[in-house]
């Protein structure tokens, strides 16, 4: 059984899912890729948008899309370093 993910890992999975889809992803695709419930994803996305990691767009056809901001890309590049820092000191 897969261990429970912490907040850092969940945010990484969401941002990574967006990045993998060419930085434009439908809400349902994030739901499948991030392996979260609808409500949890909604809460996390709301938090990520308010903190400036993710932005929400509506394309010409009216489709909803999420994409990463520069801050979101920075989080992904910092994730492994922070994870290694936490592992060094046993913080997780």
């Amino acid at each position: 059984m897969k261990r429970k993910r912490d907040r850092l890992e969940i945010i990484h999975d969401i941002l990574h899912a967006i990045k993998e889809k060419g930085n434009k992803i439908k809400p349902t695709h994030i739901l499948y890729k991030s392996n979260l419930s609808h409500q949890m994803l909604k809460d996390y996305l709301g938090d990520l948008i308010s903190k400036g990691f993710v932005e929400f767009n509506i394309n010409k056809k009216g489709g909803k899309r999420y994409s990463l901001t520069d801050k979101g890309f920075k989080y992904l590049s910092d994730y492994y370093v922070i994870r290694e820092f936490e592992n060094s000191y046993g913080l997780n």
Partner: protein
Amino acid sequence: MSFSTFSPEWFFGYDVALEFLFAIILLAVAIFAFRAYKLTEQKQLIYFSLSFLFIGISYIIESIFNYMTITKLNATICQAVKIKSVALFDLMGIYTHMFFMTIGLVLLVYMTFKVEEKRPLWLLLIVSLVAIFFSWNKLLIFFLLSSIYLLFLVAHFFGNCIIHKTANAFMIASAFFLLFISHLHFIFALNSSLFYFAGHILELFAYLLILLNLVLLKNEKKKRSS
């Protein structure tokens, strides 16, 4: 009396420089942990950052007061602010160093518990500070307590080593082991100045390991950014 009282004469000044270096390294790690906390909002990181900040502040205070003792600046300051006893002024430095170091170590130990409850933290803090400041031999009790906390931390970090099996985890575990041994040396430094010197050298190796870990992490960050 300041910590320099326990130093051999030929080591005067070197201890000031080393303590300042230790403070810089600790503050660098504290800042790194704080930035990680801003990004992740993991509570462990803020406790960790605060603990390193307090320990860093304790070394800055030790460095400043040792410098003032060596250069006789303490006597000048006492005259200027009308403190009658230079020994009392020096004691303030020792007590402030012990205060901040104790808070830092207790926070670090509390962080390893991984509990939400704050009461164990307050209990540890109060009991530690009361034990130190109400004892007859404050320095001895301080070094004994700090050695116990460091031993606890050594167990935590070596346990972490077994889980993560990385060079970085081993570096940190080794660093804290050296810090534990250095604090044992400071207990004996109360009677023999050579132990004061040895304690500082062991601390130097410990903090260099912590610095190396930080540098390796920053290099990893640069590699991933490029």
